[in-house]
């Protein structure tokens, strides 16, 4: 049983968000509406997931898992947020589960390593490099992409997710907070720390004017 305020809020999302209207059609059994949603969101979803799990094939699998969950949830769908916020909330859960599973797998692999040593991330050494040891040559476009990817990898999972939603989905702090189940202030701090970390890691490459 919805309260009047909730009904009014749902009606608002239905009015302002065309994707909410599509999802309501999916709820009512319109398969074409679901295909339209997949078309609209597949690239956006894979972009975010790929930068979270660092593997294109895995990102595609996870994106399909997200769409499957969306379809399975259609009967109980209520427009209580923007559609993108709802979709990326599911994506966040799916990606978090996948990353946790991968971390457990990694732990097993590391403990199976007879030397018992995990390989250090290359970015760890980059991040602490003194400014006198900056890269001196122009980075190729591919190399720069690799440097940026490693900088992103050096962030924690939550910082990475917040950065992806902010950068690629242009979500407000409020929407990121809803997606990740955090307070707005927590998102503000998370993004601030993430961007400060990125700045520290990437600044040497910016200073050298090596951007292609």
């Amino acid at each position, binding site marked *: 049983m919805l309260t009047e305020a909730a009904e009014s809020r749902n009606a608002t999302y239905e009015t302002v968000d065309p994707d909410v209207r599509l999802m309501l059609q999916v709820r009512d059994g319109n398969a074409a509406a*679901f*295909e339209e949603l*997949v*078309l609209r969101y*597949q*690239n*956006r*979803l*894979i*972009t975010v997931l*790929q*930068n979270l799990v660092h593997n*294109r094939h895995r*990102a*595609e699998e996870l*994106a*399909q898992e997200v*769409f*499957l969950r969306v*379809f*399975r949830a259609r009967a109980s769908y209520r427009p209580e947020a923007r559609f993108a916020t709802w979709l990326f909330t599911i994506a966040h859960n799916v990606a978090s589960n996948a990353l946790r599973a991968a971390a457990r797998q990694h732990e097993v692999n590391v403990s199976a390593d007879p030397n018992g040593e995990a390989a250090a991330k290359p970015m760890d050494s980059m991040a602490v490099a003194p400014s006198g040891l900056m890269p001196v040559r122009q980075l190729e*476009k591919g190399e*720069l*992409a690799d440097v*940026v*990817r490693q*900088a*992103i990898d050096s962030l924690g999972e939550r910082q990475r997710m917040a*950065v992806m939603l*902010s*950068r*690629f989905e242009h979500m*407000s*702090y409020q929407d990121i907070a809803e997606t990740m189940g955090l307070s707005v202030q927590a998102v*503000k*701090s998370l*993004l*601030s*720390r993430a*961007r*400060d970390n*990125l*700045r520290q*890691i*990437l*600044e040497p*490459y*910016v200073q050298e004017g090596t*951007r292609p």
Partner: protein
Amino acid sequence: MSNDHHALEHDTMVEELVAYLDGELDTESNRRVERRLARDADYRQQLRELQQSWDLLDHLPQADVDQSFTESTIAMVALQTSDDHQHARSRHSRQRRLMIGSALACSVLVFVAAFSATRWWAGRQDRKLLRDLPVIENLDHYRYAESIEFLRLLEREGLFVEEGLDHEL
């Protein structure tokens, strides 16, 4: 202490600049940041560095999948949800069979319990007669006894042992 203070000041400044870049400040805070940007070169430098490193994220891979991904997603979802229905149907059918089985088992149990209770109830008089049989058989003898004390005396002397009357007394 001084380092902590400096770190806190740095964090506050970065948080403010990032929120400014993201358009998340209220009007008053926005004006305050812009006033400081106009007079503080170091502050401006911090803003520039944050913006430049943020712009580098454009180099991250961005997906551009083809129609086959869409088709395989739709097919996978259709297949999975069809499996879901199949599982739901088979679960429903299993539940129905289980319910029917349970109902049958309960009926049998109730029938057996009712039958036993009826038999027990019906045999109640016979069991009482059977229990009192030794007394009934010796009733004529007991009539000669004048009192219960006399019978107890006879019992202590072992007179009723063979006749199985000790329990009845």
